[in-house]
C-alpha cells in the first residue's frame, strides 16, 4: 500500500463505518484475504462492481496482489474502513 501505508504502520479500523453507508471507491479497507483464511489484507477500493461486490487494489501496483489476481471481493469480506494510521 506504499505510499499511503508503509510496512509497520499502525491502522485503526472502523468496523462500523459501513453500517450507514456502503463502501465506496477510494476507501482504504481491511478485508479477509480471499486466498488464505485467517489473514487480513489492507487495500483500497478502486471500483464498486455491483451490489456487495468490490474491486480492491494495492497502491504499489508492481508488487501488489489484489483484485487483478483474485477478482472482486464480497462485502462480507470487508472488515472495516481504515480510520487513521500512524507511521513509525
Amino acid at each position: 500500500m506504499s505510499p499511503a501505508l508503509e510496512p509497520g504502520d499502525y491502522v485503526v479500523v472502523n468496523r462500523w463505518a459501513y453500517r450507514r453507508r456502503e463502501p465506496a471507491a477510494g476507501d482504504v479497507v481491511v478485508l479477509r484475504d480471499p486466498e488464505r483464511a485467517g489473514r487480513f489484507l489492507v487495500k483500497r477500493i478502486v471500483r464498486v462492481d455491483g451490489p456487495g461486490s468490490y474491486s480492491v487494489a494495492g497502491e504499489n501496483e508492481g508488487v501488489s496482489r489484489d483484485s487483478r489476481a483474485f477478482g472482486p471481493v464480497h462485502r462480507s469480506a470487508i472488515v472495516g474502513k481504515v480510520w487513521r494510521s500512524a507511521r513509525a
Partner: protein
Amino acid sequence: MSLLHRLFKAMDRVSPAPVADAHCDIPCGIYDPHHAQLAAHTVIRMVDLLGQLEHPGADATLAQKKEFHSKIARYTATKEQHAETYKQEVRVLWGDYFKPEHAQKFPELHDLVWKALKAGSKGRQEVNLAAAEDMLKDANEIARIFWSTKGVEVVKVKAPYPTERETVYPKFK
C-alpha cells in the same frame, strides 16, 4: 517515531492487534535451489568440524575447556540453523515453485521432497554425515529437476568449498 505510533506500539504490546498485510504472497517468480544446496554443504561442513574437534582431556585448562565447549556450541548452532534453512527452502520450492505439470512430468518429485525434508530433520537432530550427504544428494536432484523445468542444462561438478562434494549447477550460456 510519531507519538501516536508509540502509543499504538505500547497498546500492541499489552494486547497484540492482528496484522493486515498490504500484499500477500507476492508471486515474485524468484526461486533457486542453490540456497538448499548451500545449506546442505554447511551442514556437511559442521559435521566435519564437529568430528575433527578433539576433547581437551581431564587436565585441560579452563580456557581450553571453554574453547572446546564454545566450538561445539557454535558448530551445532550453525548446523541447526542451516538444516532449518534447507527445509524451508525445499518447502518453498515444493509449495510455491513447482506446479502440477512439473509433478506430472517428474513423478518422483513428491517422494524426493519428502525424502529431502526427512534428511533435513535427521541432519539437524544428529551429528550424522550420511544424513548431511543425503540432504545434498536430494537438493542436487531437486536442482536438476528445477533447472530442467526452466530448460537449463546442468553440470555436476565438485563444489569449490571445503566440503568438495559433487553439486549440480546450472549451465548458463
